[in-house]
C-alpha cells in the first residue's frame, strides 16, 4: 500500500530532479554528458512505473469486476495528497453546487449550508494511482526512456545538447504529473506545462525562422483549446463545487448540533467513488450545463490532441528535433486530450450529445488527415498527419460512449505510442543518414544503406496499417468493432444517431485503407526503387549508431507483440476497466454484442492489404502511374496536397481580421490614447509658454509685479 504512495510521488520527482540538475550543471559541468540525469531518471521512472503497474494490478484485482447490488464496484484508486495548495474560506456562499454527502446523508445537500458553519474550498496537490494512470505512466516513461537513449546519438554534437535534455526531463515530469494529477486545476497546470515544453522543443532550433514560427503557432492554437478547457474547469467548479477527482474526507467539520451528522464530512470529488456509486441522475448534471462542461473539456482535448478545427499546429510542429516529434507529438503529449476525455467519461456520459460530437469530430479528423497524408512528400509530415488521423480514431472510440469503445480508444493510444514512436524514430534515422533532408522526393531506395531502419520501419508500417497480428490491427479493429456495436445499439434509441455511427464506421474503414496506402507509399518511396541520395548527405549515408538502432529494435518488438499479447489475454481491458471512471455503473450493461468482431477484423484486414498492394503497385516501380493519377484527379490532388486550404482559410478568417483589429487598436493607441497623454504633457507646456514671458530676467519687472500684486491686495482691502 505505502509502496504505491511512494512510487506515485517518486515517478514525477525523478524527472524533476533531472531537470534541475541538467539546468543547473548542464552547460558548464555536464556538457556532452548532459543526457545522464535524464537517462537515469527516465529509466528509473520506467522501472518504478512497471512496479507501480503490477502493484496496481494486484490491488485492483481484489476489487470485484462486476458490480452487484450488495457490493457496488467503483474500481480501484489510491490518492496521495501532498499538501494544500490553496484554501479559500467560505467559498460556498450563494453557490448552488451539487455536492454529495457521505454515508447516509441526503444527497445533493450543500455542505456548509446555514447552520452548519462555513466551509472552505481547498485545492490539494494530490496524485492518484489507478489503472488508467498506471498504464499511462508506464507508456510515457518507456517511450521517454527510449527517446532519451535515441537522442544521445541523434542530438550528438548539438550546441544545445544540455538544453535539449533539460526540456525533455521537464516534459517527462510534466507529463507524468499530468496523468497522475487528481485535481482538475493540477491537471490544467500540467496541461499548460506540457504545452510549454512542446513550445520550447518545437522551437528548439530557434535560429530557424520556421521552427520559431511553428512553436508560436502550436502555442497559439493550443491557447484556443486551453481557453475552452479553462472555461470547462470553471463550470465544473460552479456546478459540482469541487475540482477534485477523488473524495476528500474532512473530520469534525460539522458542529455537534447537527444530530444526524457524523463527525466526518466528505466532499465528493467529481470522479469520486461516492458520486460514481450514486444514482447517475443525482450524481451528475445533465442538460445544457452538462453538455457545456463536456464540450468545453473536449475543446481543450481538441487543442492538445490536434483534432479537426485545431489540428493545424501539429504538422508544423515537425520543425522540432525528430526525437521530440516522436516523444511529444506522436506518443505522449498529443494523447493527453484522449486521456482527459477518457478520465472524464462520466461527465461525457451525463450528456450523450457530447459523445456524438466527440465521435463525429474524431471520425472526420481521421478521414481528413488521412486524405491529406496521401499526397504529402515530407516523410515527417506524412507521419504527423497519420498521428492526427490515429488520434481521430482514438476519439472515435471514446465517442462511442461504451466501455468497449473507450477501452479500444485507450488501447489504440497505448499501441499507437509504440509504433508511431518507432516510425518517427525511424524517420529520424533516415533524416540522420540523409544529412537533415526529409523530403521523399530527394531520396529513395535506401533499404541497402539502412537495413535495420528499413526492417524496423517495415514493422512499424505494418502495425500502423493494421495488418494481422501487429499492434495496430488489434486496437484499430476494436475501435471499428465498438463503433459498429454502437451503431447497432443506437438503432434502438434513434435512427439519426445510428446513421451517424454507421457513417462513421464506413468512414473509419475507408480511413483504414487510406492509412495502409499512405503508410506504405511513404515506406516504398523511401526504401525501394532506384537508390538516390541527396548531396546534403555526403558520406553520412550509412546506418545510424547503436544507441539509435537499439530503441528502434525495442519499439519494433513492442509494436509487433504488444497488441497481440494484450488483445489475446484481455489483460489491458481487464486492468483498464478497473479505473473508477470506467467502472462506472452506466457503462457496465453495454457488454453485449461481440459477435461482429470477426467480420470487422476480416474486412479491415482486407482493406489494409488492399491499401498496401495499391501502394506497392504505384510506388515500387517507376511511378509513372502516380503522375497519371495526379493528372487525372488534379483538383482532388491539389486539394489534398494543399491540406484542404485550411491554413489559408484560417489566415483569412482569423489571422487577417485579428491583424486588422490589431492595426485599428494600434492606430487608436497611437493617435487617440497617446494623443490624450501627449495633451496632458502639452498642457503644462502651454501654461509654461503663457507664463514664460514673466521670467524675463529683468529685476525691476519682478519688483513691479510684486508691487502691483501688493497694490491689488491693498486697494481690495480698502474698498472691501
Amino acid at each position, binding site marked *: 500500500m505505502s509502496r504505491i504512495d511512494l512510487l506515485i510521488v517518486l515517478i514525477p520527482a525523478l524527472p524533476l530532479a533531472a531537470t534541475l540538475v541538467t539546468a543547473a550543471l548542464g552547460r558548464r559541468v555536464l556538457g556532452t554528458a548532459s543526457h545522464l540525469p535524464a537517462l537515469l531518471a527516465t529509466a528509473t521512472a520506467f522501472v518504478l512505473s512497471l512496479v507501480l503497474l503490477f502493484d496496481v494490478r494486484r490491488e485492483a484485482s481484489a476489487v470485484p469486476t462486476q458490480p452487484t447490488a450488495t457490493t457496488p464496484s467503483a474500481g480501484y484508486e489510491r490518492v496521495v495528497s501532498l499538501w494544500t495548495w490553496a484554501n479559500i474560506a467560505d467559498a460556498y456562499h450563494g453557490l448552488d453546487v451539487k455536492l454529495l454527502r457521505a454515508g447516509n446523508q441526503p444527497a445533493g445537500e450543500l455542505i456548509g449550508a446555514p447552520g452548519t458553519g462555513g466551509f472552505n474550498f481547498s485545492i490539494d496537490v494530490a496524485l492518484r494511482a489507478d489503472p488508467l494512470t498506471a498504464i499511462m505512466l508506464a507508456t510515457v516513461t518507456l517511450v521517454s526512456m527510449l527517446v532519451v537513449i535515441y537522442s544521445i546519438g541523434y542530438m550528438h554534437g548539438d550546441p544545445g545538447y544540455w538544453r535539449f535534455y533539460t526540456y525533455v526531463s521537464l516534459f517527462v515530469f510534466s507529463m507524468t504529473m499530468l496523468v497522475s494529477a487528481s485535481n482538475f486545476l493540477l491537471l490544467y497546470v500540467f496541461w499548460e506545462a506540457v504545452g510549454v515544453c512542446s513550445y520550447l522543443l518545437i522551437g528548439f532550433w530557434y535560429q530557424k525562422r520556421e521552427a520559431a514560427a511553428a512553436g508560436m503557432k502550436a502555442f497559439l492554437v493550443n491557447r484556443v483549446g486551453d481557453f475552452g478547457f479553462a472555461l470547462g474547469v470553471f463550470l465544473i467548479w460552479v456546478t459540482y463545487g469541487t475540482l477534485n477527482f477523488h473524495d476528500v474526507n474532512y473530520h469534525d467539520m460539522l458542529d455537534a448540533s447537527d444530530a444526524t451528522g457524523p463527525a466526518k464530512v466528505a466532499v465528493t470529488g467529481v470522479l469520486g467513488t461516492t458520486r460514481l456509486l450514486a444514482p447517475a441522475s443525482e450524481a451528475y448534471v445533465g442538460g445544457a450545463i452538462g453538455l457545456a462542461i463536456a464540450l468545453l473539456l473536449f475543446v481543450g482535448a481538441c487543442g492538445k490532441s490536434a483534432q479537426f478545427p485545431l489540428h493545424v499546429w501539429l504538422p508544423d510542429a515537425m520543425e522540432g528535433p525528430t526525437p521530440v516529434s516522436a516523444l511529444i507529438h506522436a506518443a505522449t503529449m498529443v494523447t493527453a486530450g484522449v486521456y482527459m476525455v477518457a478520465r472524464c467519461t462520466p461527465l461525457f456520459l451525463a450528456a450523450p450529445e457530447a459523445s456524438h460530437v466527440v465521435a463525429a469530430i474524431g471520425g472526420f479528423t481521421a478521414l481528413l488527415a488521412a486524405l491529406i497524408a496521401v499526397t504529402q512528400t515530407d516523410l515527417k509530415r506524412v507521419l504527423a498527419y497519420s498521428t492526427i488521423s490515429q488520434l481521430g480514431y482514438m476519439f472515435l472510440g471514446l465517442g462511442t460512449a461504451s466501455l468497449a469503445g473507450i477501452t479500444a480508444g485507450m488501447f489504440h493510444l497505448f499501441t499507437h505510442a509504440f509504433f508511431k514512436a518507432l516510425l518517427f524514430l525511424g524517420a529520424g534515422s533516415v533524416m540522420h543518414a540523409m544529412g537533415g533532408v526529409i523530403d521523399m522526393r530527394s531520396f529513395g531506395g535506401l533499404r541497402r544503406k539502412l537495413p535495420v531502419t528499413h526492417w524496423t520501419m517495415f514493422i512499424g508500417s505494418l502495425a500502423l496499417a493494421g495488418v494481422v497480428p501487429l499492434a495496430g490491427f488489434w486496437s484499430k479493429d476494436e475501435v471499428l468493432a465498438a463503433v459498429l456495436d454502437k451503431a447497432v445499439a443506437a438503432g434502438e434509441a434513434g435512427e439519426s444517431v445510428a446513421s451517424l455511427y454507421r457513417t462513421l464506421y464506413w468512414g473509419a474503414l475507408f480511413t483504414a485503407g487510406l492509412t495502409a496506402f499512405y503508410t506504405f507509399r511513404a515506406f516504398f518511396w523511401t526504401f525501394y526503387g532506384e537508390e538516390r541520395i541527396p548531396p546534403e548527405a555526403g558520406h553520412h549515408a550509412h546506418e545510424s549508431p547503436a544507441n539509435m538502432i537499439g530503441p528502434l529494435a525495442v519499439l519494433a518488438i513492442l509494436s509487433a507483440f504488444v497488441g497481440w499479447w494484450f488483445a489475446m489475454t484481455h489483460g489491458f481491458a481487464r486492468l483498464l476497466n478497473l479505473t473508477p471512471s470506467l467502472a462506472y455503473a452506466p457503462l457496465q450493461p453495454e457488454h453485449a454484442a461481440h459477435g461482429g468482431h470477426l467480420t470487422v477484423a476480416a474486412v479491415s484486414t482486407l482493406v489494409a492489404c488492399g491499401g498496401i498492394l495499391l501502394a506497392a503497385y504505384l510506388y515500387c516501380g517507376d511511378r509513372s502511374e502516380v503522375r497519371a493519377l495526379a493528372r487525372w484527379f488534379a483538383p482532388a490532388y491539389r486539394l489534398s496536397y494543399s491540406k484542404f486550404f485550411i491554413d489559408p482559410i484560417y489566415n483569412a478568417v482569423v489571422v487577417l481580421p485579428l491583424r486588422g483589429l490589431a492595426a485599428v487598436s494600434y492606430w487608436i493607441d497611437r493617435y487617440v490614447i497617446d494623443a490624450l497623454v501627449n495633451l496632458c504633457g502639452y498642457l503644462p507646456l502651454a501654461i509654461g509658454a503663457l507664463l514664460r514671458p514673466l521670467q524675463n530676467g*529683468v529685476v*525691476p*519687472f519682478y519688483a*513691479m509685479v510684486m*508691487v*502691483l500684486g501688493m*497694490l491689488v491686495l*491693498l*486697494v481690495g482691502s*480698502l474698498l472691501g
Partner: protein
Amino acid sequence: MTNLLERLTAWWHAYNVYVALVLVAVGLYLLLPRRRSWGRAAGAVTSVIGMGLLAARSPAFAGFFQQGVFWSLAAVTISAAAATVTFRNPVYCAIWFALALLGTAALFFYQGAQFLGVATVVVYAGAILVTFLFVLMLANPKGQAYYDRISWEAWLAAPAAAVLLGVMTVALARGLPAIDPAVPAGSPDFPVPAVSVARAMSQPRVEEILATDHMAHLGGQLFSRYLLAIEIAGTLLLVALVGAVAIVVHEQRSRATVDAAHPTAGHALTPAALAAGRTQHDSQFAGAGANIHE
C-alpha cells in the same frame, strides 16, 4: 548745563521779539537796493526768519508756526527725495539723497528722537552714502550712461506709486480719526489695543519718550529688553562684513586670472593703462552687455 539751557530758554522767551526785530531790520537792509548788490539772498532769508519769529509771537499764528516748521522740513525731505528719484546723474541723486536724509534726521529731532537723528546723519549720510559715492566714482563709465537717461516702464511705476500713496493717505484719513478719546477702547470701531491707546490718550501724558534723559532710556531699553536682538544685529553686521570681504576677494581673484591672461593690462598702474585695461575688460565682457543690443 540744564541750568544754562533753562536760562537760555527763559532769555529767549523774554527777548526773542527783539531778536526778531533786529533780524527783520538787517534783512530789509540787505534786501534794499544798494551800491553793492551782494547779500540779497541772505537778506531775504534773514527777513523771513525775523518775520516768522514775529508771527510766532502772535497767538493766532502759534499753531501755524509749529506746523510751518514741520511742513517746511517735510517739504525739504520730500522734494529732496523726489529729486533723488528723478535726477539723471547718479552723483546728483546721491547728493539729493543726502539732503533727504538730513530732512529725515531733522524730522526725527522734531519727533524727539534725538539719537536717531544723530545716528541717521552719522551712519547714513556719513558712512553709507559716502560709500555709495565712492562706488559711484570708482564705477565711473565714460560719459553719461544711456541707462541713466531712460526709465524702466515709468508709465506703470508712476501710477503705481501714486496709487500706493493714495491708498495710504486714505487709510490714514479713515483710520486715525477713529482714535478718539470719546470712543471707548475695545469697541468694534476701535481696532487699536486698549491699553496702549489708553496710555497714549492718558491725561496728563507720561512723556516717557520725551524725557530729558532720553539716551539713558533708549540705551536701557536696548540692552535689557532688546538684548537678544542687539546681539543678533551685531552678528549680522559681522556676517555682512565678512561677506563683503569674501565677495571682493573672490572678485579680485577672478580679476587676477583675467590679468594673467592679458599680461599687458594692469602692469603699469597709470590711468591710461587702467583705462586701456578697462576697455579690454569691457570688450571681454561685451557678451554680457551685448545681449541688450543683440
